[in-house]
């Protein structure tokens, strides 16, 4: 039995199915992220855990206690919002202590706890400030402290870093993770930013169209995507349409060039078209040793991305494949138009469940 359990949870808004048969069991102290594009049902799921929406069917339990139909103020669940939602009429200290005042705790206990939490978020000197006197990052730290003040059983965070700039986002997400580990609180984090989800979570739930696409550790999600959606949404990916040559030997052909998968292609027949996913970082700009897969084509683009350089190689008549190489000042990059051979190990070619929507699609996850 898990600490937070969502069982067969469904939610519709009129004819629109927001969440379909959602199943999740999290352990105590686990950090789980719900990752997906806008409208995939991740926020609705979070809001059902918080009690702001009620499921049409299914159940939600915390520590074995059914909370499916409890109003939000009767669940011991803390929430941090994207828009901070600090009470503008209250100081930082009053905001943090609000929940404790509602629960009629003693003044001494409130003062002590508020002080501890402000220390934890490194803002003890800001206790008497009002929200409008704080930066976005500071406001969100106060919102986090406020949510934690009532010692919730589960902490919910709804895209808490979306309104912040890139540097603050990284700093604050590390802080959130450190605080979560320190307190050992079960946390559900909603984001559409795959980098955030992968860096923060013990497990990631990838969602699309109200359904769970895959649940797994960040490494599993990134390296072994279960569906073409997960593969395309998480990280940058080359999705190539390949013709199966010999399924038992894992042999495939991409634009007439033969490659090999690490495992036999189960459930596919010779001549069938399947999707092959290739991460740009697993492809090398060299011929590689015997036994590696090789593809050859002219360079069509070279992009400088800071620490890495991304090259695009055209295969045959249309599809292109992207590869990443570390930015080394001594590296000699081929000029555009020059034919090069790139290589990747058989383990890097992941055969997915469905054929690629567009042959040779180079898909980058949005954030």
């Amino acid at each position, binding site marked *: 039995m898990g600490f937070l359990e969502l069982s067969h949870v469904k939610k519709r808004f009129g004819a629109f199915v927001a969440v379909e048969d959602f199943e999740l069991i999290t352990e105590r102290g686990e950090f789980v992220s719900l990752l997906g594009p806008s409208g995939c049902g991740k926020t609705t799921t979070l809001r059902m855990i918080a009690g702001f929406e009620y499921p049409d069917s299914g159940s939600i339990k915390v520590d074995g206690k059914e909370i499916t139909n409890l109003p939000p103020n009767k669940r011991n669940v803390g*929430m941090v919002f994207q828009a901070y*939602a600090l009470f503008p009429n209250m100081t930082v200290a009053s905001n943090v202590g*609000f929940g404790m005042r509602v629960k009629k705790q003693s003044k001494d206990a409130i003062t002590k706890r508020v002080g501890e939490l402000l220390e934890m978020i490194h803002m003890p000197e800001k206790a008497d400030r009002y929200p409008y006197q704080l930066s976005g990052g500071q406001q969100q730290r106060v919102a986090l402290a406020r949510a934690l*003040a009532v010692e919730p059983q589960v902490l919910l965070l709804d895209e808490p870093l979306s309104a912040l700039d890139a540097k603050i986002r990284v700093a604050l997400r590390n802080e959130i993770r450190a605080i979560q580990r320190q307190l050992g609180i079960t946390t559900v984090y909603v984001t559409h930013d795959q980098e955030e989800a992968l860096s923060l979570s013990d497990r990631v739930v990838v969602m699309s169209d109200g359904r769970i696409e895959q649940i797994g550790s960040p490494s599993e999600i990134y390296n072994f995507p279960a569906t073409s959606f997960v593969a395309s949404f998480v990280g940058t990916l080359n999705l190539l349409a390949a013709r199966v040559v010999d399924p038992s030997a894992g042999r495939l052909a991409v634009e007439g060039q033969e490659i090999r998968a690490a495992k036999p292609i189960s459930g596919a027949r010779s001549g069938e078209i399947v999707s092959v996913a290739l991460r740009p970082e697993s492809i090398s700009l060299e011929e590689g040793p015997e036994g590696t897969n090789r593809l050859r084509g002219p360079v069509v683009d070279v992009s400088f991305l800071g620490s890495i350089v991304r090259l695009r190689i055209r295969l045959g008549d249309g599809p292109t494949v992207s590869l990443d190489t570390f930015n080394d000042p001594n590296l000699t990059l081929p000029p555009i138009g020059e034919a090069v051979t790139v290589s990747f190990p058989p383990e890097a070619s992941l055969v997915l469940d469905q054929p690629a929507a567009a042959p040779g699609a180079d898909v980058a996850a949005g954030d």
Partner: protein
Amino acid sequence: MKRRRGSIAWWLVFLLGVLYFFLPLVATLDFSLKAKPPFAAYTSSLQDPKFLGSLLYSLVIAGVTITASLALIVPTAYWVQLRVPRARSLVEFVTLLPFVIPAVVLVFGLIRVYSRPPLPFTHTDIGSSALLVAGYIVLSLPYMYRAVDTGLRSIDIRSLTEAAQSMGAGWLTILWRVILPNLRVALLSGAFLTLAIVLGEFTIANFLARPAFGPYLNLLSQSKAYEPAAVSLISFGLTWLAMIAIAFLGRDTRTRIEIGGAH
């Protein structure tokens, strides 16, 4: 050169506006001072017990009306915006009805329904005053609702409500501790407009035979020459005092919501 001409035109418009608003006041003041000795109209008005009595009565009625209006409108507007935003246009239409239905129709309706059993409100002073308050709540509805609605729209009530709920707060706590303090300026605006309506209203108070300020002013103008002008200016001064009080009470900027630069 063009800019200078534009500036002169702007000042001319401003001057015309000032004259439009202040000339009648100056004329009223001039007329009120024609009594002999010059401030006799003011001293006699202020010494008239009916002046103070009617003003006090109207202020009490205004206080009750404002309290009742807020108790009715704040939760309604809050609920409509939070839970049934699609009903907002309907509610707005209802709140505009007092502009369409004349006060005289409203007061005859009230008298007809509440002057006989089982609800003979007009048989007692307190009952008639209650009807007066009810009438004023209706008259102030468009102004009070709009003030509250505008205030609610200026804050993210959904997030604030949900944040409070997640910390264990019930509806009353949320309204009292979170929503109302953030509506202070809007509530003061609504309260002021209601006060202005109640102090100047004549029709309903007259037909319900209430000793309010409006009927007193009307009665005065029928029997005296300079005093009505003096009393009008006094009530105008009181209105300005109320406005200054609102500006003073609303000067606190704590309720501003700003997202500062990240650091």
